[in-house]
């Protein structure tokens, strides 16, 4: 960063510092004149918004920690003390609690923007992977934060989530005891969660720094998905995008403030205002809304993997293997693929129905050797973590040369359906796992997984490569311009 000739600053103090530590030069380069594609739409606001939310969470969290007590007998009361006795305590807590939701809203939009416009593709793979790492850290942070008030949802949410690890064969139970620091969820658990909840946001800050560093190496992607070529394609970050980001941020913060001041509990669960009770489970345990799609995937596995499912999956892997090789699209025999798929489908259905329990408790389809060897619980946990792991490997699954969905009509349909799919999963996650919601979440999970594992490689091979605009500048000018001349 310090290499190259440095421009002198007029202000003597700034100049004195900068000649010793060129921090102003760096800011000027990275945020002042930084060449930024000139065709950003409002989706490009959410990185800055997420950054704002991270800072908001840290500031409000640190002041909450001045009044909060991390002890199982005192935590609940200390949160009530914050709400009732501490000056502006209610405001700080509502800022923090709703802030988590709005942080996730910003990050989900930011992430989907990357998906839609192909920002995860070369040369931005690492940038994307760092982003998914931030997302994962955020989930851990938010989960542990939600445990801190030690209400019923805090307690039982933590019970269910730490129990995930008991699915690991052999060592699972010992891992759960180790995580909880006891044979059940108790004070040691609460204490370590507080410690980590304090720490992880600063780890996030570190990864965000790497994320932005990587961004400033490759530069931003843009809605057209073509790289800027000449000066005509870009604008200096300041004042153009500092202004646009500020405007977007103000709109976002306005909505956030409406929630903080007028609907502060609408995104939470009333049950969390009941102190934790280790012998009474709430009738309906629901995680915070931002975890619902993953929770739905966890619960979608009401069945384990048995011999039939394994054979079916094996055949599917054979059928889809050509998608992952270097072969050109036209050389793959679609007929052969379809043939194997039919067999694979038959085995998968047989496997599924031989695991499916009817209301009578009997199996829907009685077959020999249909006992599951990977039980439903482990499958659910693996699928849930897998659904995030897929985001990590996405840059390597998608080899199509075109980035933006604007120029990929097939991909566009798939990626828009993904939004619908995740919305359905969100609803399924909030409903009890019974009746119609179970198959619905199973089908939705199948689409989610299928989109990444099969859909993306398939499109990489077969989706036609369309002509792209010659440059950002040209595509901006090519749009029909509405010019209103006022007299």
């Amino acid at each position, binding site marked *: 960063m310090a290499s190259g000739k440095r421009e002198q600053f007029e202000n003597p103090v700034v100049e004195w510092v900068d000649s010793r530590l060129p921090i102003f030069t760096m800011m000027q380069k990275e945020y002042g004149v930084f060449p930024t594609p000139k065709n950003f739409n409002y989706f490009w606001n959410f990185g800055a918004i997420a950054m704002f939310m991270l800072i908001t969470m840290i500031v409000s969290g640190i002041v909450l920690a001045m009044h909060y007590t991390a002890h199982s007998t005192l935590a609940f009361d200390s949160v009530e003390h914050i709400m009732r006795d501490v000056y502006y305590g209610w405001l700080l807590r509502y800022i923090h609690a709703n802030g988590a939701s709005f942080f996730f809203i910003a990050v989900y939009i930011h992430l989907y923007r990357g998906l839609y416009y192909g920002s995860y593709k070369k040369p931005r793979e690492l940038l994307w992977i760092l982003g998914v790492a931030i997302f994962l850290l955020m989930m851990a942070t938010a989960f542990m934060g939600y445990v801190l008030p030690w209400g019923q949802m805090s307690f039982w949410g933590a019970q269910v989530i730490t*129990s995930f690890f008991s699915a690991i064969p052999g060592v699972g139970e010992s891992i759960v005891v*180790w995580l909880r*620091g006891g*044979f059940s969820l108790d004070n040691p658990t609460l204490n370590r969660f507080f410690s980590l909840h304090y720490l992880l946001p600063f780890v996030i800050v570190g990864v965000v720094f790497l994320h932005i560093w990587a961004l400033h190496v490759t530069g931003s992607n843009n809605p057209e998905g073509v790289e800027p070529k000449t000066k005509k394609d870009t604008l200096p970050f300041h004042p153009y995008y500092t202004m646009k980001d500020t405007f977007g941020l103000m709109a976002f913060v306005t909505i956030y403030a409406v929630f903080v001041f007028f609907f502060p509990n609408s995104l939470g669960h009333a049950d969390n205002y009941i102190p934790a009770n*280790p*012998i009474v*489970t709430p009738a309906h*345990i629901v995680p915070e809304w931002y975890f619902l799609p993953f929770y739905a995937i966890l619960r979608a596995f009401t069945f384990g993997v048995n011999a039939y499912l394994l054979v079916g999956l094996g055949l599917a892997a054979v059928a889809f293997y050509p998608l992952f090789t270097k072969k050109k699209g036209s050389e793959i025999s679609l007929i052969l693929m379809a043939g194997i798929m039919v067999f694979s489908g038959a085995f998968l259905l047989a496997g599924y129905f031989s695991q499916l329990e009817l209301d009578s408790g009997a199996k829907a389809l009685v077959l020999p050797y249909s006992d599951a060897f990977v039980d439903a619980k482990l499958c659910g946990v693996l699928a849930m973590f897998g659904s995030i792991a897929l985001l990590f490997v996405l840059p390597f699954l998608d080899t199509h040369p075109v980035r933006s969905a604007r120029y990929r009509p097939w991909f566009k349909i798939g990626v828009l359906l993904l939004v619908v799919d995740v919305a359905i999963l969100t609803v399924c996650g909030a409903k009890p796992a019974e009746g119609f919601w179970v198959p619905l979440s199973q089908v939705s999970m199948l689409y989610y997984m299928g989109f990444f594992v099969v859909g993306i490689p398939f499109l990489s091979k077969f989706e036609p490569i369309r002509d792209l605009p010659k440059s950002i500048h040209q595509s901006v000018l090519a749009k029909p311009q509405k010019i209103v001349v006022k007299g």
Partner: protein
Amino acid sequence: MSTSPEDTKPVQDETKRDFLYLTAASMGAVAAGSVVWPLVDQMNPSADTLALSTTEADLSAVQEGQSITVMWRGAPVFIRRRTVTEIEEARAVDVSTLRDKETDEQRAKRPEWLIMTGICTHLGCVPLGQKQGDQKGEYGGWFCPCHGSHYDTAGRIRKGPAPKNLVIPPYEFLTETTIKIG
């Protein structure tokens, strides 16, 4: 030695270097491990938590068909004095059809008393069925409302996502009416 130093020295040096690298690296790994282990092990249950690992319960007031819940190591333990029909139902089941194959005899030292941890083996909720009027599931034992696991009158998983039967803690009868759990 008679060989000239020119052609042996480099070879010797290289193996000596390898040896030094390897020993240094393995000593480093041991050092790192001995620093990391206390950091990992501190998260295990502490001595005072371990010290609370037994509990005694008085069963004299429990009538046939009643259940009590006692706390052991911070988690509920279900103690049920089963009715004759419940015991018969539990014993009539063909064990080979079960998900987690255990006979009723393996689960209850004294058929009348069924003692097990009240933590669903799926994801750790407390199943219903201890109180009069609770939903007991399709097998007349316990029902976990979290994701719908049904347990029978021997606490064995019969339907739903839980992989295992409700766990039987170590326990012994101290007298006819008191037990020690743990």
